[in-house]
């Protein structure tokens, strides 16, 4: 445990020096505030508090930003060590590859938690200031924060996997962008196209729920929207959230990080020197 912690401290320090902490936090705060400000217009008639509406907007933001941020933080994690030539020495220390990976994960998760904590917290402050009833939405904000960290863990694991497989930071960066595009953008576009062409048929009722649970980003969106009382405010794919029981999206959210970190560990074990 001490070795994991020592690795995490070192990684956090490096990320801090490379301004990852300030970039991530700054980005999250900026986008969250913009959303909070923009989201303050259409309220009142929805019948929910201001914060719950903001959380619905923040969920859509997090679906894009959290995977992007975590992939950017992680693609260099192992390939960078290989390229700098720091890995062989590290591997002669009495520390296992799993410990190294968990140390990096811990540091990157801490940075992500800081970023979403500050970002979403700022948005919450704005919401509560203009609408005291918004306190009622704090529970959904808290849920959004911890589920964002879980979503981030999934994509950190994916980033480490790519990093180990590519072995060169440039290659890993390309793969990371591709994963982000497919998982976050193209996947949903494809689902939307299928929903439209299916017009409420077997695909929409049978396959769509499974397809949403299979993608960690969609599972995250479904989980937050169905848990919050703001489904109506979200619309779009969020509408499908109604048909998926909460425990299923929660399970997907919890299992994905484990699967992706296991995958990363396996890929890291295969890295030879």
């Amino acid at each position: 445990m001490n070795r994991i912690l020592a690795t995490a401290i070192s990684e956090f320090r490096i990320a801090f020096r490379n301004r990852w902490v300030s970039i991530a936090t700054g980005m999250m705060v900026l986008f969250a505030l913009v959303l909070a400000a923009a989201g303050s217009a259409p309220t009142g008639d929805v019948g929910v508090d201001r914060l719950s509406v903001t959380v619905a907007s923040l969920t859509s933001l997090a679906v894009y930003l959290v995977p992007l941020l975590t992939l950017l933080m992680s693609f260099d994690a192992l390939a960078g060590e290989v390229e700098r030539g720091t890995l062989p020495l590290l591997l002669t220390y009495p520390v296992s590859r799993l410990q190294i990976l968990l140390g990096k994960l811990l540091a990157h998760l801490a940075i992500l938690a800081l970023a979403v904590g500050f970002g979403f917290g700022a948005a919450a402050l704005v919401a509560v200031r203009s609408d005291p009833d918004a306190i009622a939405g704090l529970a959904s904000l808290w849920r959004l924060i911890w589920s964002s960290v879980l979503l981030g863990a999934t994509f950190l694991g994916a980033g480490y996997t790519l990093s180990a497989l590519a072995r060169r930071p440039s290659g890993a960066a390309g793969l990371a962008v591709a994963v982000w595009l497919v998982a976050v953008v193209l996947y949903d576009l494809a689902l939307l196209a299928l929903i439209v062409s299916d017009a409420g048929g077997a695909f929409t009722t049978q396959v769509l729920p499974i397809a949403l649970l299979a993608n960690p980003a969609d599972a995250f969106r479904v989980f937050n929207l169905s848990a919050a009382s703001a489904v109506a405010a979200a619309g779009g794919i969020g509408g499908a959230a109604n048909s998926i029981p909460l425990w299923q999206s929660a399970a997907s959210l919890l299992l994905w990080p484990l699967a992706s970190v296991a995958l990363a560990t396996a890929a890291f074990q295969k890295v030879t020197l």
Partner: protein
Amino acid sequence: MTPTLTISRLTKRFQSLEALKDVSLALEPGKRAALLGHNGAGKSTIMKIVLGLIPFESGEVRVCGARPGSSEARAKVAYLPENVAFHPALTGEEQLRHYLSLRGERPSRAMELLARVGLLHAARRRIGTYSKGMRQRVGLAQTLIGHPRLLVLDEPTSGLDPVSRRDFYELLDGLAADGTAILLSSHVLTEVEARTDRILILSGGELVAEGTLADLRTRAALPIVLLVRPAAGHAAALATAFPLGIQGKDGVLRIACDQSDKLPLLAGVAALGHQVADLDVIPPSLEDIYSHFSRRDGQ
């Protein structure tokens, strides 16, 4: 005494290339052995196998009685890679604190280690601003963590200036005196000559020679060179007296002879009396011995 490192009949293949062939060696506690060989002779490969970084096909390797790369072995072995690298964003102190924690030692010892390698003044600067020699010293400092039973040093003095090299070998002497076995590779043969107990010459993946420098010198039986400087006006007479010698432009006569002919030849030179101004006896250098065993000189 039980050897710290034992390698028996080690063979390593990279696809069709046989990188190591049937290599056997043993290193006792407190002994310093130098691995010599051309680029690609297998020096780094042996080191990586001893460290457990790469697998091998056949043979047996034991490090402090354990399998190389096992956590037991890793706890007792320290490594300095060739061209050692660190993350440029960390300071020397932070990097060493990290390594200390990984070995279960107190991180607060970082400054003490940096002082031992003469880097105290730069401890709080980022490694990205260090020179190659300074990075090498950080590398050296991390090998001093804990009490390693075996040090594996790949080209440890590259990038160090002559004074730092001397300090470095003094550090090694201290460690060896405490019982640490040291396996190092170097291209600088003169320093290896003075500072190690044993020399191992690798060529094409085979261990072609092993022993002290004196052993190898006897076994190679290379010619000794006598340099005879004639007194003024006696250059021609000297050349006639030793027809086998080769006279240079400055008149200095260069005579090569076998070890067994050395004393008679010296007596002959001495007999010439005032005709000789000066005499130097040059034994075969480590370079010559190395070339002889690594068979690059057209053998």
